């Protein structure tokens, strides 16, 4: 009976497992794509969120079409995998921020995502100030109307400001100065940059605006502001009085007080307000207590006037190339000596603070002693702003004559805005010892010895390091030996050998440390020595020494046998041993001399008995 019940239960479990397996079905669902615009209509000062959701096994990047009058920028992406009844579905969602240049109705054509396309979307863009249709689950338009005054007031109060901090108000054309750009945001205001910080006008250049801003807090007039600071460098391009102006496009997320909002609008605000990736994004929690309003603004700095003076024409050096700042100049030749035909590199380094990109220098010229190639320059900044650093001019030169040659010094001129005068710096001439060459052509050098740290102009005018003379051996393959079996074996072999050696050594050491083994070895040695003494006594005809040695050997052998084995002696062995010992007593203490023949007989008996004891052990 019990067996029948167990069988029935097993059948039920098997049937259930079968049903589950059948219901699992295909592992992957078919792909489909949707596109939604939230809200579908908005004003020119607002933006909408375009979401493209792809489910299934398609993961291609959507091809966003260009729509005249609309700006569609990527805003983020997410992915998730769902498993429902065994069917696995991957969902990829990409969001785009849609803004309009002007009001009107726009149609976003079908968007292609891999082999799929979305239906077209229609967008209605109203004039500035027109209330947009509600976002899906977003803040209620009724509340917008009800609280428009509160919203306008909050927006005015929450509008951020931006300013430029300049070290001085008078610059020279070409001068670079470090500046700070600060944007002040009230607490509770979220902001997302819709574009890079940019300079307005053509009188200045501002570099480093693409770098990340640092965020701090400052209290001004009892109000706490979150401050974004960019450290940058301002460069003056033309003389005159110009304001320094910068602008930054932003989307602000501002919390409106909930005093006059009903609970429904709060809940919609809670689930509808989104500002992904926003700085100080508190939209979710802010939605609990009020409504978040998004607004696209362009933040502009106050117009800070700067006077840019032209560089003085008086005393301007002939080789002045527009470098403004403070600089030092050094030169070196590497290697410091060589042979005729060997390429050497003359390196001129100008270090300092200023517009390094405008720094230029005289170059070496061809002469009867030197063949000179085109110089290559490289600017290396010491700081993020690029204000300080060094510029290196590398010029390959080839000596054409043997002997003590000289490379002339070079001069470099710049304008120092602090001293307000031109400065010319010169490098000393370089003396080089050149030995006669081995007939090598200037264009052929060996690769490992080639000091070509910069590109060299070849005969045909391209900027390539020239061909080299072919020396050295060849290798059959470039494949690394690391994956070859013999290499792996050669790495494993020492480990195996080491383990064997260590095992043997440890075993030997253990044997040395075992008292029983040591005693056994000592006894065997004693037996061997006594047997040798016994044989020597036999040859001498000394029965006393013979039996003394025989007795000691037998005693050691018996003791060793007792250590190794507990097996009892046979009566025959016992009798033989007693006979040998008795004879030994007689020979040692009673002076009995059995004669040479009997001694040999006793030797055979003793050796035979030793072998028997060895066998017993």
């Amino acid at each position: 009976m019990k067996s029948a019940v167990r069988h029935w239960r097993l059948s039920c479990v098997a049937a259930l497992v079968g049903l589950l397996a059948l219901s699992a079905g295909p592992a992957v669902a078919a792909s489909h794509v949707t596109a939604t615009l939230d809200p579908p209509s908005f004003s020119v000062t607002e933006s909408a969120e375009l979401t493209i959701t792809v489910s299934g096994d398609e993961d291609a990047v959507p091809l966003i079409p260009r729509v005249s009058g609309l700006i569609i920028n990527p805003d983020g992406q997410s992915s998730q995998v769902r498993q429902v009844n065994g069917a696995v579905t991957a969902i990829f969602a990409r969001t785009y921020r849609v803004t309009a240049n002007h009001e009107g109705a726009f149609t976003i054509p079908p968007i292609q995502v891999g082999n799929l396309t979305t239906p077209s979307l229609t967008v209605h863009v109203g004039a500035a100030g027109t209330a947009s249709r509600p976002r899906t689950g977003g803040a209620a338009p009724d509340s917008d109307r009800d609280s428009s005054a509160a919203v306008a007031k909050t927006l005015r109060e929450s509008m951020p400001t931006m300013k430029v901090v300049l070290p001085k108000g008078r610059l020279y054309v070409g001068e670079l100065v470090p500046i700070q750009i600060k944007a002040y945001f009230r607490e509770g205001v979220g902001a997302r940059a819709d574009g890079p910080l940019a300079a307005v006008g053509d009188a200045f250049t501002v570099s480093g605006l693409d770098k990340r801003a640092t965020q701090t807090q400052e209290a001004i007039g009892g109000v706490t502001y979150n401050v974004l600071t960019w450290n940058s460098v301002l460069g003056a391009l033309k003389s005159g009085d110009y304001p320094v102006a910068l602008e930054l496009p932003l989307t602000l997320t501002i919390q409106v007080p909930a005093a006059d909002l009903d609970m429904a609008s709060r809940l919609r605000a809670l689930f509808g307000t989104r500002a992904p990736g926003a700085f100080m994004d508190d939209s979710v929690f802010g939605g609990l207590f009020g409504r978040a309003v998004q607004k696209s603004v362009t933040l502009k700095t106050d117009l800070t006037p700067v006077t840019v003076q032209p560089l003085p024409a008086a005393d301007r050096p002939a080789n002045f190339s527009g470098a403004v700042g403070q600089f030092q100049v050094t030169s070196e030749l590497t290697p410091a000596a060589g042979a005729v035909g060997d390429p050497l590199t003359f390196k001129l380094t100008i270090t300092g603070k200023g517009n390094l990109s405008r720094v230029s220098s005289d170059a070496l010229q061809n002469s009867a002693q030197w063949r000179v190639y085109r110089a290559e320059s490289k600017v290396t900044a010491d700081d993020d702003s690029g204000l300080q650093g060094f510029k290196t001019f590398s010029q390959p030169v080839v000596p054409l004559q043997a002997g003590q040659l000289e490379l002339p010094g070079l001069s470099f001129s710049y304008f120092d805005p602090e001293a307000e005068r031109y400065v010319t710096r010169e490098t000393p001439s370089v003396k080089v010892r050149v030995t006669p060459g081995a007939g090598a052509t200037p264009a052929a050098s060996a690769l490992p010895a080639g000091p070509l740290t910069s590109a060299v102009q070849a005969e045909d005018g391209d900027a390539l390091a020239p061909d080299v003379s072919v020396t050295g051996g060849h290798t059959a393959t470039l494949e690394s030996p690391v994956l070859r079996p013999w290499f792996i074996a050669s790495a494993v072999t020492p480990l195996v050998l080491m383990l064997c050696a260590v095992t043997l050594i440890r075993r030997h050491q253990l044997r040395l440390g075992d008292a029983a083994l040591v005693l056994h070895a000592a006894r065997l040695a004693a037996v061997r020595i006594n047997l040798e003494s016994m044989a020597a006594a036999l040859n001498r005809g000394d029965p006393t020494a013979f039996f003394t040695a025989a007795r000691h050997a037998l005693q050691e052998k018996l003791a060793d046998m007792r250590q190794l084995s507990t097996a009892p002696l046979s009566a025959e062995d016992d009798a033989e041993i007693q006979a040998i010992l008795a004879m030994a007593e007689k020979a040692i203490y009673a002076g009995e001399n059995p004669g040479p023949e009997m001694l040999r007989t006793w030797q055979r008996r003793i050796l035979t008995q030793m072998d028997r004891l060895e066998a017993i052990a």
Partner: protein
Amino acid sequence: MRVLCLGLVLLLVASTPLRADQPMVAAAAQAAAAGDYAAAVRDYEQVLNRDGFSAPVLFNLGNAWLRLGKPARAILDYERALVLAPRSPAIEANLTAARQRAGLAPEAISPWLTAARYFSFDSYIWAALAAVWLLCGALVLLCLNGVARRLARPLILVAALTLCVSADAAVLCWSDLYRAVVIQGPAILHLAPAPSAAASGGLREGEVVWLQDRYSGFVFVRTADGHGGWVSDAAAVPVRASRP
């Protein structure tokens, strides 16, 4: 004794630099100097096929390809030359020029990898192997007594340090074993190893990719920005090739 003498003779023959390629190398150099880069390419490739890889030959071959207007092939040869002669400024300069001509952005390399590439990958693994042998020998000495035991400790320290540094560097450079250069571009990245499979992207000529798998005439490659896909194995040629 005869066997020993024969072995020595063979060793000497094997270690003597082959000079049979010199006429062809000279012909290639003359062709390049005369501006006949196609002939130079042909001659240098014959030298490689006959005698194996050589950094100077690969460098000159890269120059010839670049002057022929084939920057992708030049990039491949410069990359191979750098395997044999790492840190060669001439090769690096021309590789940069070739990448510029191919319209490729400079390769972004971490400072650690830059430091690790100071020596070649093979140098590191040979150093690691030598360190393993030394370490094992020193551990055996450590089991002995007297002078051997005293000698073992500094040897273990040196071997362990060498092993750590070389193994770390080898791990950093490990991906270099799978570098490849796209020599036929623009190449289509497929989602599956079949010509009819959907495209998942494209590869530019001269772009460096990393080989990850191989199947039926296709190789799965991953680009520097993390994109992956299958591409024809004729389009992406490994830098560390088994033969020229």
